């Protein structure tokens, strides 16, 4: 990569976003506590009561809790690098302004990536706090010291989804196409990544899900929360790292073609 990164500029991009969000920080973070509560009470306690067998009642709360935490990180990162990034790149001409400074495209990409990761981490950790609250109330959602590794893993999940969003953003010209990204990509992931049921109940479910990022995110979060850490979790972490690395090599080049003409 030509001329590498300038850490001060990467930080400046992060700080610009933080300056905007600082004003509404408290307001922004509150919904992140309600959302997990709604899912855990509505689906975990509500639906879980009808289930029979090993996922009955409180066990269903423990089953879906960690996966929903992974989805929260996914959502936190996705919004930043889809709609928000598109607006900054086009309508508000913010990237044009950045590129009038010593900033190069890769600094902007990395600054936005770190910011989106920060938001994913905030969403994910808010969810984790709610899960720990359920633990205090007697549910067995987070039961292992491995949970200490959750924040970095939430950041990794955030980074991976931030890069997928950036990649999509670098390819599209009209903002309406994000409707497809959300309904045809993120929503199916949310439903078919093993958060609510084992994907193996569909033919090739496991194999198909293995190729998608949220499946690995869920597997990691569930394993770390409940102490079932093994080769699967290692593979999932490497999967997320690998995909992130590949995208990080592609995205700055794509955006440079778009912004520097």
């Amino acid at each position, binding site marked *: 990569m*030509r*001329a590498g990164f*300038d850490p*001060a*500029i990467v*930080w*400046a991009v992060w*700080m*610009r976003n933080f*300056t*905007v969000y600082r004003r509404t920080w408290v307001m922004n973070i509150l919904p992140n506590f309600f959302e997990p509560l709604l899912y855990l009470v509505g689906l975990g306690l509500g639906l879980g009561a009808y289930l029979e067998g090993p996922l009955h009642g409180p066990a269903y709360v423990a089953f879906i809790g960690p996966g929903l935490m992974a989805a929260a990180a996914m959502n936190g990162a996705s919004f930043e690098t889809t709609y928000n990034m598109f607006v900054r790149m086009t309508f*508000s*001409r*913010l990237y*044009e*302004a*950045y*590129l*009038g*400074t*010593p*900033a*190069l495209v890769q600094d902007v990409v990395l600054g936005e990536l770190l910011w989106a990761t920060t938001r994913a981490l905030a969403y994910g950790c808010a969810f984790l706090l709610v899960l720990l609250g359920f633990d205090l109330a007697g549910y067995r959602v987070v039961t292992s010291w491995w949970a200490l590794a959750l924040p970095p893993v939430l950041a990794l999940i955030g980074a991976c989804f931030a890069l997928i969003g950036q990649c999509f953003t670098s390819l599209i010209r009209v903002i309406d196409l994000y409707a497809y990204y959300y309904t045809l990509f993120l929503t199916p992931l949310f439903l078919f990544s093993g958060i609510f049921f084992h994907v193996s109940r569909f033919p090739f479910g496991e194999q198909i899900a293995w190729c998608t990022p949220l499946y690995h995110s869920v597997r990691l979060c569930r394993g770390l929360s409940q102490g079932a850490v093994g080769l699967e979790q290692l593979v999932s972490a490497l999967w997320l790292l690998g995909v992130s690395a590949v995208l990080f090599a592609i995205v700055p080049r794509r955006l440079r073609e778009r*912004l*520097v*003409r």
Partner: protein
Amino acid sequence: MAECPGGSSARAAARPARRTAPRTADDAPPVVLRARGLRKRYGDLEAVAGIDFSVRRGECFGMLGPNGAGKSTTMRMIYRASPIDEGSLEILGLEAAGGHNDRAIKRRIGVVPQEDSLDQELTVRENLEVFARFYGLRGETGRARAEALLAFVKLRDKAEVRVGALSGGMRRRLMVARGLLSEPELLVLDEPTTGLDPQARQGLWERLRALRRGGTTLLLTTHYMDEAEQLCDRLVIMDRGRIVAEGAPRALIAAHLPPHVIELHMDTAGALPEAVAALGDAIERSELLSDRILLYLHDPDAVLSQLAHALPEAEVLVRRSTLEDVFLKLTGRRLEEG
């Protein structure tokens, strides 16, 4: 508070003011920007079709031309927002072609792009403080620089206002302040006054003059000839990607046209009236437009009475030749037409 923020006044003090010390070829200030055979194409369109020009330190250099002439494309190549297809472009001693010096070049120049790109979600002060970080100015240093620039562009009393609430002139001044955050040796402005009302234009010109007095080299584009005449020491006129004329405003006019113009406004300006033809050699050049005839000449007094007598129905106006006339002569089009 000094007239000019920070280092530019220090630089100015370090060398004699250009205006008070008339220069000869030998002690001319060094060249800070030199383009040679600079080219840029977009598909089949040659936006910049091989141009050569150079800008010396401390001068205000203008690029005048209609819309689509290639001014912004040239500016974008200079501030490294656009790759160079062909030719060379040396900026402050660094070669821009190839892109290897992008970061180094961008650290030393200031940029005011054509389109408004202020951060709508931030206040006036935040706009400067946030962008100061891009130049490595953090904390107190960044705040102090922002404060000095707010004073310089006369926006201190608007410091805590959201950008959306500013008038067009204020937004432009804030764009200029943002371009000055790095205390640049060279400030590049792309159509800084387009769309502003006359007062706002005057206000901006006055700030640009203050900068030039402080020693900052200015490179600006415009499609207003009065702006070019007012501000620029030297300029080039661009049209369809090429430079069609170059020089100091008055010298440029003198080189291409006689000093005076008689404008004959009349309803039926289809052909040159015989009365004009009869004036013979006194008229050095004539131009037929849809609603008037332009007569270029050295001595208007001598022919005015003759014209008034021969063409009593025509409205007659005498004025000095302008850059617009030069452009008209060179391209056969008017600047505003594009």
